[in-house]
């Protein structure tokens, strides 16, 4: 009888069928354990804030395309001298987050023109650079899509190129540069 039962259990163990027989199989097996390490990294929430708006300064018809670098240096494609009564300055943003992490940059929603209070506009093309210190490096192009929080901080300096029409109306023109960042 016992040999018949043992054969039945062995057969059930071999085929894996039957709950009760599985218990018998288990009780007859050696126990084994394993462990896995669980790791979670909670990053400091990223923040970005505008530190300075962009001041393009005074322009005059005939300046053509005026490019202002990420440090506020202007140049014009036209032959008419640039008025220099207002000190130009780039926009820049301060970013904070967990150190040594990279982040993505999006500028969706930024203006494509600067506009006055009426219907006059000037095309604008933005460019920017990401720095680890609060100073630009005089870039006149570049649209990096990523940056690094080297020490938990980063900065985005923004320059732009504005095209002044040959008969551009005298007025104050404004536009918005919008940036969002996110951990990679």
């Amino acid at each position, binding site marked *: 009888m016992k040999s018949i039962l043992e054969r039945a259990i062995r057969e059930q163990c071999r085929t894996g069928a039957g709950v009760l027989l599985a218990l018998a199989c288990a009780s007859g097996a050696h126990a084994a354990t394993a462990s896995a390490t669980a790791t*979670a990294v909670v990053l400091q929430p990223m923040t970005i804030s505008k530190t300075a708006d962009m001041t393009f300064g*005074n322009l005059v018809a005939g300046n053509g395309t005026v490019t202002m670098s990420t440090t506020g240096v202007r140049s014009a494609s036209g032959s008419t001298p640039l008025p220099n009564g207002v000190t130009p300055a780039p926009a820049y943003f301060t970013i904070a987050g967990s150190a040594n992490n990279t982040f993505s940059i999006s500028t969706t929603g930024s203006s494509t023109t600067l506009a006055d209070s009426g219907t006059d506009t000037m095309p604008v093309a933005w460019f920017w650079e990401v720095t680890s210190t609060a100073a630009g490096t005089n870039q006149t192009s570049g649209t990096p899509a990523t940056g690094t929080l080297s020490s938990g901080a980063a900065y985005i300096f923004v320059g732009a190129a504005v095209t002044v029409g040959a008969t551009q109306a005298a007025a104050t023109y404004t536009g918005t540069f919008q940036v969002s960042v996110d951990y990679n």
Partner: protein
Amino acid sequence: MQGMAARPESATASTRLRRGAGGLLIGLVAGIFGAAETADAAGAKAQARATVIEAIHVNGLIGVPVTAADLIVAWRAAPGTNSGLPALRLPALLLPDDAAGATPAYDAAFARTLGSVAAVAGAPVDAVLQHGLVAAVSAITYEPGEGHAAQLSITVAFN
């Protein structure tokens, strides 16, 4: 400050094998945690401002003999756009002061008068502007017998 604190979110995944019906040590629980993926976007905006000022108008007597009282240099810009511009500056005016005309000399009195006239004459509207820069003075010639008269060709540009 238009900074916006971001919303941290974390994601975990776990896999659990059910214990056998008999409660034997077959169950294995394995929690698999990746580094928490923090969906943590933040955004901010900056305004860009550019001011287009009106082209300069020179209502001077260009290319003809003038005196300080005759010369008018007027310029203006769109109302409200002149703040921050520096005051009028004039370069040294070189005027011949003798009949021979061989030795041009700076006439400070003439320059001051010119500046004064310009400041007044440049007022087409309320936003007037006393701001500008005489960028170059050229073609000075002497008219014998006319005292401090000179033929000026000037260009001006906004500061």
